[in-house]
């Protein structure tokens, strides 16, 4: 059975590493749901977080194949352990005067922040997990949104 997995991949921070990782997924027919990458505190290394839907056998192969890449130092399947996962979403809503209060209320209830207001548009930002993001999407749907971006997940093992 295919399930969603979050892989946290520690790599050396050098040119072309991301391509190697991404090529491996495409070349072997695996799917990438989301992907984030940024240097760690030690800038010699980067952290790549990939979410992918796959069977447990495929995940085992993916992890082994990733390990085979020379610049990959560590691969953790965070879905195996309990992990804290967060994602940033930003949504721009064209707000009619009569809806302004409702939008602000949604922001308040969901814990989203209003980070930009113009006479036409409100932009909300939320740092949340998958469930909360889905809830926000449902709430703002009736008002229509102009733009919606999400960062892709970052994750860290609990404890």
């Amino acid at each position: 059975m295919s399930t969603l997995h979050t892989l946290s991949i520690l790599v050396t921070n050098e040119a072309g590493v991301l391509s190697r990782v991404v090529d491996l997924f495409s070349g072997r027919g695996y799917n990438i749901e989301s992907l984030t990458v940024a240097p760690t505190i030690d800038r010699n290394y980067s952290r790549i977080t990939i979410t992918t839907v796959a069977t447990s056998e495929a995940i085992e192969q993916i992890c082994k194949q990733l390990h085979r890449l020379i610049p990959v130092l560590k691969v953790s399947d965070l879905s195996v352990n309990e992990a804290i996962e967060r994602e940033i979403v930003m949504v721009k809503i064209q707000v009619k005067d009569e809806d302004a209060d409702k939008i602000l209320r949604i922001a308040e209830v969901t814990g989203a922040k209003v980070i930009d207001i113009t006479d036409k548009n409100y932009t909300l930002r939320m740092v949340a997990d998958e469930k909360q993001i889905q809830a926000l999407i449902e709430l703002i749907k009736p008002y229509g949104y102009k733009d919606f971006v999400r960062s892709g997940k970052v994750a860290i093992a609990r404890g």
Partner: protein
Amino acid sequence: MAKEMFTGAQIFLKSLEAQGVTEIFGYPGGVILNIYEALYNQDKIKHYLVRHEQAAIHAAEGYARVSGRPGVALVTSGPGATNTVTGIANAYYDGYPLVVFTGQVSTEQIGNDAFQEADIIGITRSCCKHNYLVKDVKDLARVIREAFYIATTGKPGPVVIDMPKDILVAKAPFEYPKEVKLAGYNPTYKGHPLQISKALKLIREAQRPVIISGGGVLQAGASYELTKLAQLLEIPVAHTLMGKGTYPESSSQSLGMLGMHGNYWANYAVVHADVIIAVGTRFNDRITGCLKRFARDSQVIHIDIDPCSISKNVKVDIPIVGDAKNVLKAMIEELTSKPIVIDHTVKEKWLNQIDEWKKKRAIPECPSDKLSAVKVIKTIYEYTKPFHPIVTTEVGQHQMWCAQFFKFDEPRHFITSGGLGTMGFGFPAAIGAAIANKNSLVLNIAGDGSIQMNIQELATCMDYGLKVVNCVINNGYLGMVRQWQEKLFNEHYSQTKISSPDFVKLAEAYGAKGIRVEKEQDIVPALKEAMESNCSVFIDFVVESFEMVYPWVLAGQPLNKVLLSNDQKVC
């Protein structure tokens, strides 16, 4: 005192020297002229000029396969680099160590679509073990050191180093690193003791065990250990195409090759085994047949240095990640620490069963009175056996016939493109083999299709006085594809009839020896003449077009659905 400075080109040569490289294969071009200039002024490294970059890389692989040392190729940027891609992929699939140096346009021109620019790092990323773009001359020596280390350790493979022109001109002090530190690369050499014990328990209890010996045994130099283990426990051994020679084929315990064109009894033994001990093989579809039906009722022990090979295709019960030599040695030690008890009634029952299966074999049929390809190959084998030849092949029917009829008792004598199945591999690989082992007879058994893919290398042979005996099994078709068309596509021979030049005249045009054989009685005299020749030879064996390779397990069929002759219907 200021350190002495060297150009990148000089550092390249000094690094190869430090690495112990004495022979390289290559083809010059614009951006690597500085290296060729440096080569001009020295005599420590011998450069072999080929006629096509693809041949340089196959020759380097042939060299690596025979010598056990990494093969080195040097080509220019753009087309020079892209021409090596097939060879890089070939070495990657079969796991042989190569270090491939490609020229690149100057750093400031990269990405600007300069003349002869190709993103060879991007292109080769998925078909090599690792690759480097050198951006600073100070990194060059370290990168070369790392490349050789990566290429030759773990599961060996090709590493590409892309060197922009300005790096070869820029100067830096030379210091060749003694050690390699790669945090993300630590191949496992020692097998886990618990896994080894578990495996041995299973093997001791096995009633119908069989060993599958693959190319990893050759790579690890573990033939001795494998043979010893098999003999201690009286376990029959089947080999893969890449594992040919890892277990002496003259031994009565050898089942020969298994798989698509393997022996009937080898396939049956694997299908009916209760324990399969697979060593250094990645369970390619050519040896498993229908994967769902493979090893359904058996326990599988898999020893491999590459964790990715384990449970990739076949679900493994006891995986042991490690170097085959180390693991087998540890197994033998543990085994011999206690008396070995073999239940001979059980063992004999199994071996008798295999002997029973051995009665079923394909009988070669030649549909006309023309010369039979099988007869030719068998005669070549018998005639050349006393010379202990190194045999390279191209890809197709002749390759399978060679795998079936040539028997080897030692590794590194049968050189063939297994994983990628590259036509055009054999002849340049034979050149590499002839350079790696100057005293051996080198035969390239080829088809008329394959040989024409790199036939230009006859010029290379003549330049360096290398002797390769090319035996062209000339049936006027791309035989293996034709065979599939005959059986599976209603005899529609779509684009498989292929013409050839007059190979005798062609050989003579190059200054080599050409011989044509059309009758059975001429085979041996032709071979005798070839042995006596002091230059490369082309023997054009004009053979029957419609001979088939049997046994044959059709793609996707389980291993025990073996066709032994033309009369058998496809199920």
